[in-house]
């Protein structure tokens, strides 16, 4: 794990402990993907409304804490501001609000929505003939929703080669509706498909830079809770749970163990 991702995970743990909120394991599975996205798209943290920027839509909105900590790491705001995460009048809710947080392009939360909006954004940029790209991150659980596949069909039917769909294949649905072969599904729906280790920032970044003649689905093979053994071993117990002080110390130790 690169230091930048370790730092973001430490921020997620500390803020979850302090606020009592956050889906830690799902945030941990997408940290590398988020870092790779913001390392490759055109954006300017000092000008979040820059008209030429590429667009990132977090469709699995419950990874908001991971998104906030990544945006902070890239300079959109000070991570200390996120500490009141989920607080009554905080800007930083447990699901992101585009009108409150710079860098959030679409307010998401209910699953299966962000990808459809991202498809509309990509279509708009094609109409305008701009070179802007749209990247969206969907969860494997989220992909139980039919709307994910409606959006994917539209994207491929319209040849949106400016759209990248990152699929967080963290096995979150193994107790109900797990999609066993997401790469085959996206290929069958007409996408160009890449399969990557979702915890390899360099590999993900290379993949995101590659352009294809059709929408690009990147299957990010990830581990829910990646970075802390406890979270990986007890993934369902930790789905939406915050650590107390002792547990936080233990999780920080696991994160620093550099076993991963």
């Amino acid at each position, binding site marked *: 794990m690169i230091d930048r991702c370790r730092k973001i995970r430490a921020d997620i743990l500390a803020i979850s402990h302090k606020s009592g909120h956050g889906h830690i394991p799902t945030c941990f599975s997408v940290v590398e993907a988020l870092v790779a996205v913001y390392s490759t798209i055109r954006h300017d943290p000092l000008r979040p409304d820059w008209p030429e920027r590429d667009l990132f839509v977090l469709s699995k909105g419950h990874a908001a804490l991971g998104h906030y900590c990544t945006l902070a790491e890239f300079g959109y705001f000070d991570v200390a501001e996120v500490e009141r995460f989920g607080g009554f009048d905080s800007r930083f809710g447990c699901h992101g609000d585009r009108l409150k947080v710079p860098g959030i392009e679409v307010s998401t939360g209910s699953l299966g929505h962000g990808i459809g909006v991202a*498809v*509309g954004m990509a279509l708009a940029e094609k109409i305008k003939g701009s070179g802007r790209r749209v990247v969206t991150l969907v969860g494997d659980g989220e992909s139980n929703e039919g709307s994910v596949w409606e*959006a994917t069909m539209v994207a491929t039917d319209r040849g949106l080669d400016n759209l990248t769909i990152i699929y967080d294949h963290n096995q979150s649905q193994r107790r109900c509706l797990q999609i066993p072969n997401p790469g085959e599904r996206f290929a069958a729906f007409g996408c160009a498909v890449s399969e990557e280790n979702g915890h390899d920032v360099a590999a993900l970044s290379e993949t995101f830079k590659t352009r294809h003649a059709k929408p690009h689905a990147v299957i990010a093979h990830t581990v829910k809770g990646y970075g802390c053994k406890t979270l990986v071993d007890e993934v369902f117990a930790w789905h939406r749970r915050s650590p107390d002080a002792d547990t936080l110390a233990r999780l920080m130790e696991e994160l620093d163990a550099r076993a991963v």
Partner: protein
Amino acid sequence: MRGRFKQTVTALAEADSRVVVLLGDISVYQFNDFQKRWPTRFYNLGILEQALISVAAGLSAQGMHPFVHSIAPFLTERSYEQIKLDLCYNRFGANIATCGASFDYAWDGATHHAYSDLAILRLLPGMDVLQPGSEAELETLLRSEYANGRPTYFRLSDHPHAIDTGPTRFGEGIVLKRGNGGVTVMTAGPLLGNVLPAVEGLDVNLVYFHTLKPIDAGLVAAFADTRVLVVHDAFGLREAVNEVAGLRTWYHGLPDAFCGWYGTLHDIRKRLGLDAPGIRAAVERLLAA
């Protein structure tokens, strides 16, 4: 009314390159010329109402003025959460224009009837809800509201009235008749074609709306000292009118039941007492009460 819709949207597209049409595989023939003229601004996306709304939100986010058009129950009830979140909560404006409501597809049965659309869309913060009754009203409202930056619902009708209701202004109700009998009939949309003849010669006020949200609360309040009979072939107007406190209202419209008949709009209106004689009888009952 769909013809006028197409004509007006085409005129808007001519003047404004941000106008984009998204169809749910309905009215495609109507838009043949549009598609030929502006192939990159016309998309018959398919029969996927959730995606239609979400894609419209994304287009709006990037500065376009989308018109989404499909059949009323599917585009509003199936996609309600997309309208609520992707449009309203995100403050992405878009125009939703439906056909088929209330009983325009009477023969297709309850799966294709839509009488809750106006009521449920009124509940969404930031949403404008329009039920133009005539083609002239539709054109005026399309032209004035298509780029207002808010999610805006235009409920088209295959049976518009042709009554000249005077100047059409967004958000304003219209008094079509004044009386001294202490009863005010309030109605909206194409049903005016039945309501106006129904109250002929009766000593009542008649107030008509094409905009259900925002409702013209000031105009409603002006009749608060009368008994108000809401006559509507949908849900939504009664709720809008009752936002004004202190009213005494009655409702002549739909039952709390599926309307399990087929036939035509006129057959179902007649069964519900929403043909002119049925409406007149309801008004007379209230006058006599």
